């Protein structure tokens, strides 16, 4: 399956979904006014990927900031991953947060409590 690569902007993150390796990454800032528009291709891509996923899918989410409008879309992305995991595929979400950024850690824990996929909280130390 073709990779999904989106270059980041000041308001949207870098996206690199590599379907061949089962390595998915979202990195940067996610603060667009219209998040649905930005996240639609990601959700669509995952829907297709879910039809023939890799045995192991690893997802790296490394956000510096995200707004509440993105938070719902991120949940939609995670729900797609949950569906893959439910079909007995190995899925792991790595949630990165910067040292002392308790708000970002807490945001990851909120998702972890809603989504039935193994999460790993990873603190980045400068």
């Amino acid at each position, binding site marked *: 399956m073709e990779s999904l690569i989106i270059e980041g902007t000041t308001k949207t993150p870098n996206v690199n979904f590599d379907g061949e390796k089962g390595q998915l990454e979202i990195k940067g800032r996610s603060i667009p*006014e219209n998040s649905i528009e930005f996240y639609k291709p990601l959700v669509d891509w995952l829907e297709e990927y879910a039809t023939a996923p890799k045995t192991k899918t690893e997802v790296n989410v490394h956000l510096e900031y995200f*707004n509440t*409008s993105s938070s719902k879309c991120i949940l939609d992305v995670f729900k797609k991953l949950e569906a893959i995991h439910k079909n007995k595929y190995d899925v792991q979400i790595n949630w990165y947060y910067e040292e002392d*950024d308790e708000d970002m850690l807490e945001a990851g824990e909120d998702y972890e409590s809603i989504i039935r996929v193994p999460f790993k909280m990873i603190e980045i130390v400068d």
Partner: protein
Amino acid sequence: MSFSINEYYTKISEGDILLAYKGSITSELINEVLEAVEGKLEKKNEEGKTRKKLYNVLVESLQNLYHHIEETHEGIDEDLEPKFGILVIERGKDGGYKVTTGNFVAAIKTKFLKEKIDKINSLSKEELKDMYKFILNHQKISAKGGGGLGLVDIARKTGKKMAYHFYPYNEKYVFFDLQILI
């Protein structure tokens, strides 16, 4: 005495101001404000935690304005730009910040807004977390943005009560002022 935008703006811009703006709240304006504030905080070597909280509060409050301000305001005599709003960021003496936003809202929305903020202000940290998760998981995202998560998120991140005021303007509109401490 009736409410005057200019008097209000002059009054709230009196303190130790990091940034003050009145005019159209557009997507470009939001970019400019965020960039300017980031630059200023970097120069000041502001602590990472405060910087992030202020940035988050600015994103949410500006996007709340962006999504909810009406394009034009009928019957308001003052010469207003489209999607008119006010933003003032003030440095507090305690090392914190105060973000004030102001905009005209339909008078009939006063009760809804008041109840919403009072409710959020009455909740504990844990209750805010539960409310946030509930809205996140159960409410559809609306065309107007985050489906009501913005204020809950602000309350969670600041851990402080929001202050607000509704200034009567005319039959149709009140001027809504929201103050957030960081």
